[in-house]
């Protein structure tokens, strides 16, 4: 059974419960579901919103490619990734990743792996909008995110 990852890039928010149900409904082979939700932080109430820009087409293709890699590498039974674009306010959702598998470690590793690659390899860019009305500039790429990829090298 080869199941394709479900990858969506959308402006709308997502419903984590409905997304889990899509992956698990009617199945009795799944023992472990790990979800990761990335939320917009307020940075000590200085941030009014993040604006997320993406490269349509390539964003879906890259995340699909990485998710397929994760499913194969960790033996996942299903994987969903939803990445939002547009203006997102503090405490709102930015990204959702779900990994399902028979046993827990594969689901943890699959979701963690996808997030590490998504942070540095998926064509999204974040701009800060500040509470005081200033353009807070584009978010710099973090070395820590690049370094996080190292843990997946065999």
């Amino acid at each position: 059974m080869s199941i394709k990852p479900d990858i969506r890039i959308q402006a709308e928010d997502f419903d984590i419960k409905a997304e889990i149900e899509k992956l698990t409904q009617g199945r009795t082979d799944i023992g472990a579901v790990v979800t990761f939700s990335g939320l917009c932080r307020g940075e000590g109430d200085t941030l009014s919103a993040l604006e997320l820009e993406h490269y349509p087409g390539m964003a879906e293709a890259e995340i699909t490619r990485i998710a397929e890699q994760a499913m194969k590498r960790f033996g996942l039974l299903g994987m969903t990734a939803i990445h939002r674009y547009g203006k997102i306010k503090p405490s709102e959702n930015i990204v959702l990743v779900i990994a399902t598998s028979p046993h827990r470690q594969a689901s943890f590793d699959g979701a963690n792996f996808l997030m590490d690659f998504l942070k540095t390899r998926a064509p999204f860019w974040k701009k800060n909008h500040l509470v005081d009305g200033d353009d807070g500039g584009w978010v710099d790429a973090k070395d820590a995110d690049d370094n996080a990829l190292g843990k997946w090298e065999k």
Partner: protein
Amino acid sequence: MTIKLVYFAWLRERFGMGEEQVDLPESVKSISDLFDWFETRGEEFEAVMEHRKIIQVAIDQEHVQDSGTLIGDAKEIAIFPPMTGG
């Protein structure tokens, strides 16, 4: 050769456009040639090219790591800063 160039994030802002159709000079064979040519296109392009070491490229929506990569008969080249998704 006419090709579509696509810009994102602060490159898009600095260039004042998200995309353009350009006729590449014959001499532009590789990404590195493309960046050299950019430097001749005026102040804003020159300023952006000061960051060419960190600037990333996708040819027809596929990442390219090596600036020596040939453009060939690509239809779309995207140029953008390091990604900050997730």
